């Protein structure tokens, strides 16, 4: 029995003469690794050097080629995204109103109205998205014969004529279903153009309204049979609608709705608070619209080190004026996206000193 004033002395004394014997395979491994590669290395020195140079050059060229393909792929994907974004155009009411006003002004009933279809609505304002209507299955024989308009009092009595840009430039018309005018409107073809929603891109969690207007025997793939369906888009998906067209033929249309995140947070995985002007603060970068932002930074012992509701405010790696050491720290971020849904993200990052 021996008393030590400091526990360190006990361990130092005890381990001074401690001589454990490692397993015999340790030396076997060492001798294999140390000797063999070196002897062969000297024999085939130049072969080795040549081979390494060859491998290195091929690796470099390969990586360059790979990088190039990667970047081009990236660019094309961005382009395709942009083009789909631009396909969010106009809702139907707008189109009709446009034409009505033009009709009001004109006295010539046979005047054809040209329409451009590339208006763009701001992406983020697109909360209750009404998708554009597309003309499908236009009967080729449709011709307007006589149109006489005698009264402007009721909007139902208006006719809308459109010049279809492609094909044979058929004229077709859209009339109100409740059209019961006894006035001298003589529209001979009562078939209505069928409008199906077009493929579109929306923010995640947006509510979207899809149409299959004027079609008969509608059956959506979610079981609904209405002309209009409203759906919350959590992720990209394809809607399928079966309907009977103007000729009584059963048709299927596919509508692809792409969901993209509209609030993108970029959270770094490490930072270096050494006052060199580079990554001295842990800061989150965000694009898109959001509100009620909040970030909390914890230690691994779940102690709160930093808390703020301003996204511009970064953390400099101190707590109550004390410089914190190198290591892993945790964060929790909460915010409300543009549909007022609370989103929480957790993770970890490295403080490098």
């Amino acid at each position, binding site marked *: 029995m021996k*008393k030590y004033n400091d526990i360190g002395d006990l361990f130092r004394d005890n381990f001074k003469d401690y001589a454990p014997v490692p397993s015999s395979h340790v030396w076997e491994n060492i001798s294999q690794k140390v000797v063999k590669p070196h002897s062969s290395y000297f024999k085939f020195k130049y072969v080795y050097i040549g081979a390494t140079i060859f491998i290195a050059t091929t690796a470099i060229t390969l990586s360059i080629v790979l990088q190039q393909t990667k970047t081009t792929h990236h660019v094309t994907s961005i382009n395709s995204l942009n083009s789909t974004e631009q396909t969010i155009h106009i809702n139907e009411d707008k189109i009709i109103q446009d034409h009505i006003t033009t009709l009001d002004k004109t006295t010539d009933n046979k005047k054809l109205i040209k329409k451009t279809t590339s208006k763009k609505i701001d992406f983020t304002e697109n909360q209750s998205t009404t998708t554009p209507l597309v003309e499908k299955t236009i009967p080729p024989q449709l011709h307007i014969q006589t149109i006489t308009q005698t009264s402007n009092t009721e909007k139902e009595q208006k006719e809308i004529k459109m010049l279809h840009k492609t094909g044979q430039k058929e004229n077709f018309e859209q009339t109100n279903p409740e059209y019961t005018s006894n006035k001298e409107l003589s529209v001979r073809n009562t078939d209505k153009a069928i409008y199906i929603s077009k493929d579109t891109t929306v923010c995640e969690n947006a509510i979207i309204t899809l149409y299959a207007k004027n079609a008969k025997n509608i059956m959506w793939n979610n079981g609904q049979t209405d002309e209009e369906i409203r759906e919350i888009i959590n992720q990209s998906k394809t809607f399928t609608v079966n309907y009977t067209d103007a000729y009584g033929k059963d048709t299927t249309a596919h509508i692809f709705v792409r969901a993209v995140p509209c609030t993108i947070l970029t959270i770094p995985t490490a930072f270096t608070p050494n006052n060199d002007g580079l990554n001295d603060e842990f800061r989150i970068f965000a694009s898109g619209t959001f509100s009620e932002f909040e970030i909390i930074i914890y230690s691994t012992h779940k102690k709160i080190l930093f808390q703020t509701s301003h996204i511009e405010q970064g953390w400099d790696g101190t707590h109550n004026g004390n410089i914190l050491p190198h290591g892993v720290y945790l964060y929790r971020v909460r915010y409300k996206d543009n549909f007022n849904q609370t989103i929480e993200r957790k993770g970890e990052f490295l403080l490098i000193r």
Partner: protein
Amino acid sequence: MQNDNKEMYASEEEIIAGCIKKDIKYMELLYKQYASKLFNCALRYTKNKEDAEDVLQDAFIQIFEHMKQYNGKGTFQGWMTTIVINQAFMLYRKNIKQSKYQLVDFEDYKDTMKDTSVVQHDFLSHQLLLEMIQNLPDGYRMVFNMHEIEGFSYDEIAKVLHCTPTTCRTQLFRAKKLLQEKINQLNDKQHKHIH
């Protein structure tokens, strides 16, 4: 084994020169002379025997590769010990990457524990003491070994561990407290057992 190497007795300089020439006989001689001493060190810096053997193996490969760089400053054993410690640190860092969480202390440790005295009874063998060190949290074990047994200063440890000297001191005190508690517990148990 000893009979085989009877004629192979060499001084430290001869061994070093032989190892630089990559002579396997001198390498084996070096290994036999220092393996157990360095294994003692490797055991203390790792969690178990398997890890320690890995560290020892890698350290010897490093020693043989970089034998030329030994410039005669300090003892030869000390130089080899630092290589073993470095290898242990590499393993420690690899473990950090795998587990992702490192044990860090950021609070100002208001140390109330001044008394670090302890009584060693006969039953406290090398094996028991070694197990105590090996069961310490990684960070504590590193600091305790480096400061208490190898005798590095806080500043030197801080450089290696990438932390502040204050943190090192804090971790050392905690390590000591843990060890003291453990030894006192064992002492009490032994005491009850006897009576």
